[in-house]
């Protein structure tokens, strides 16, 4: 904490005789805690910016619009296309309905997303960070609002430096109000993925929604406002692990936002009609720095803070056009090509590399497994739990009886009858508590979209006991649909 008071001024200490008499706390050059450098990203126009706007519109559109899509699942079932229904423990995605025990589909989806991210990063650098990450999208939206109200970079710097006035207060208040409204809508949209959208919107405004709903709307309003309005690039540099991981995913063939040093250096100010001989193309106008949303200088090379949005490319191209030089002094290029270009050789692009092949193969593999398991997914499941207390019961005729709890999962929204068959030693007979006794086959009912539990006793005459553990298989069949589920269990007995 001792460096705290000097963080802004950074006193430079050298071999100074006065050093000995200074308070000990002053003897540090770098503060322990750093103030955030204020960043005023300048507006820019160009290809990258337009792609970024288009993606911003598309992604926000998906986010706000999807909860309103309807999908008819018949009576009694929610008709929202994408819905995570926590109280009923079901997740819906159009025609897919996921039960809690099938949450591995979500795990699979996350693994796919991670691999897709790895692939994109190894090919094109941090495009996710620059274009698609919610933090980037909302920050961009918030900056757009800020620019509308407070003006562009210069105006904002002047405004912040100006003493408080009615006009300044009005601008600041309206900016934060606008941010809060957007944040509120963000939080509001989030809860629609967990509630029926039209219903919950009505409840929200009439004050009838549950405390949970208000809590989460409030939570996401607050986080959106803080992260996109205040924290911004600090989320990327301090909170997010991705900038640290990406180093392992990039190689010399990844396309990165690159300042072409060999062409730009030595940099220097440019006056009209000056000769370009013996100097680089960078005119040190610092436009690339002015537009950077994380406030870095791309000319320092690849940095942790660079989110790969390419806005500096747009800014630099604009300047290059003005001074009549070719574009792409800053461009998407690979490290390897930079060495080639510096040596005057043609660039080589290697998108197909062992690294990218592995990612693609993994993605295809996992996606096929998931698709296959989704397609082959049964609408019925059977769980059998062998009774352990007691493990087996000796009957008065010396026979042995085992208990089982069976659970039938009927994933259809209609009541169904299942035929339960016991496949084990020929002499084995089962009794269903509250149902038929001493049978090898029984009909069990299962209500719509539910789990039903039955207690089953299986008995075996003493003579039929062949081993301490004997396999038995339970099978349920829905004859009408031709669906079957099996479960292998064991029959325990004393030593024969």
């Amino acid at each position, binding site marked *: 904490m001792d460096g705290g008071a000097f963080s802004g001024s950074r006193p430079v200490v050298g071999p100074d005789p006065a050093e000995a008499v200074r308070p000990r706390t002053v003897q*540090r050059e*770098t503060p322990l*805690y*750093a*103030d955030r450098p204020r960043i005023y990203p300048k507006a820019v126009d160009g290809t990258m910016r337009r792609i970024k706007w288009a993606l911003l519109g598309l992604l926000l559109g998906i986010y706000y619009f999807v909860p309103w899509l309807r999908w008819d699942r018949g009576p009694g079932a929610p008709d929202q296309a994408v819905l995570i229904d926590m109280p009923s423990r079901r997740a819906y995605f159009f025609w897919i309905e996921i039960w809690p025990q099938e949450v591995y589909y979500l795990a699979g989806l996350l693994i796919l997303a991670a691999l897709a991210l790895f692939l994109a990063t190894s090919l094109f650098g941090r495009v996710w960070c620059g274009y698609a990450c919610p933090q980037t999208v909302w920050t961009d939206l918030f900056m757009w609002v800020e620019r509308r109200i407070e003006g562009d970079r210069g105006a904002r710097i002047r405004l912040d430096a100006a003493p408080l006035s009615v006009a300044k207060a009005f601008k600041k208040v309206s900016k934060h109000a606008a941010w809060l409204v957007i944040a509120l809508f963000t939080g509001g949209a989030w809860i629609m993925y967990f509630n029926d959208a039209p219903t919950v919107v009505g409840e929200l405004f009439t004050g009838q929604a549950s405390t949970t709903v208000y809590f989460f709307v409030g939570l996401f309003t607050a986080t959106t406002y803080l992260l996109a309005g205040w924290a911004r690039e600090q989320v990327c540099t301090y909170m997010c692990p991705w900038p640290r991981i990406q180093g392992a995913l990039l190689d010399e063939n990844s396309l990165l936002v690159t300042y072409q040093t060999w062409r730009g250096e030595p940099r220097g100010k440019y006056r009209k009609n000056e000769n370009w001989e013996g100097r680089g193309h960078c005119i040190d106008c610092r436009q690339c720095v002015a537009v950077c949303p994380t406030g870095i200088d791309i000319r320092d090379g690849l940095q942790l803070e660079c989110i790969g949005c390419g806005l500096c490319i747009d800014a630099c191209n604009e300047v290059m056009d003005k001074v009549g030089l070719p574009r792409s002094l800053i461009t998407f290029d690979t490290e390897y090509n930079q060495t080639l270009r510096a040596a005057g050789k043609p660039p080589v692009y290697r998108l197909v590399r062992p690294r990218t092949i592995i990612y693609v193969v993994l993605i295809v593999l996992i996606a096929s497994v998931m698709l296959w398991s989704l397609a082959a997914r049964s609408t019925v499941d059977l769980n059998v739990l062998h009774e*352990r*207390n*007691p493990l087996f019961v*000796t009957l*008065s005729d010396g026979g042995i009886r085992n208990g089982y709890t069976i659970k039938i999962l009927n994933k259809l929204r209609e009541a169904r009858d299942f035929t339960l068959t016991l496949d084990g030693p020929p002499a084995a007979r089962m009794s269903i508590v509250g149902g038929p006794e001493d049978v090898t086959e029984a009909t069990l009912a299962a209500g719509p979209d539910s789990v039903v539990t039955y207690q089953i006793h299986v008995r075996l005459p003493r003579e039929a006991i062949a081993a301490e553990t004997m396999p038995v298989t339970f099978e349920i069949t829905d004859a009408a649909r031709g669906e079957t589920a099996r479960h292998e269990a064991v029959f325990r007995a004393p030593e024969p």
Partner: protein
Amino acid sequence: MPTKGEKDAISGTETTGHEWDGIKELNTPLPRWWLYVFYATIAWSVVWWILYPAIPGITDYSRGILGYDQRAELRETMATARAAQAEFLERIAAASLEEIHADPDLRSFAIAGGRTAFADNCATCHGLGGSGQAGGYPVLADDDWLWGGTLDDIHETIRYGIRHEPAETRVSEMPAFGALEMLTPDQISDVAEHVQSLSGMSVDAAAAERGATIYAENCAMCHGENGQGDRQLGAPRLDDQIWLYGGEKDDIVRQVTRPAHGVMPAWGDRLSPELVKMLTVYVHTLGGGE
């Protein structure tokens, strides 16, 4: 601890001045707001102390202005749970045992409640799931019953107990044939051979034949001519494979010489009538219900 700044030779970054076994920490400044978040958590903890119980005293503790109490919360939760059960308990109270057993909703409620009550009260002797214990604690999951396995029989046994206080308690006593010298040790040995033969064990045929006469005169009245037992008297079956006190000859000799008698407490005055009914249905579904 030195606070003097020192530059790392390789990275050119200043160190914090902290050193562990020659390893020095580079000073990479944290954002200042991070520090403020730390202060904010300290401030929040003070708010927490004021709102919630926090500071221990000698005999009491600070209660906090919200008046929050975990015990009170537990009481509330329990009250809510009881209210939710009330409807079922009323129906259990009103219904006969057969009605409870026949109604799927009531049955599963009774089994769930019965299982818990069984684990709390009965499992000490009868084992979890009614698995019984050697030495006189009957298995409740099998099809052999001393006093009967119908719903009503089980209900009466639970309610009044066996050889316990209530006037209605189930009671019977086997004479101590050996201790009272009603039979000689030889006779007891013979009768044990005969008893073993009733369930098809291989025995000394001559001794068993001698024992048969003794059995007919002394034992058959309660245990039945062929050892089929008598549930009215709680006299165990002797012709099956289930032995309460063991089926070896020594076990039988001991039991005839000086019989052990189990005692089961009456639960009717300890548990609510509804719970006794639920226990009855639960025990009935363990596998031996008649």
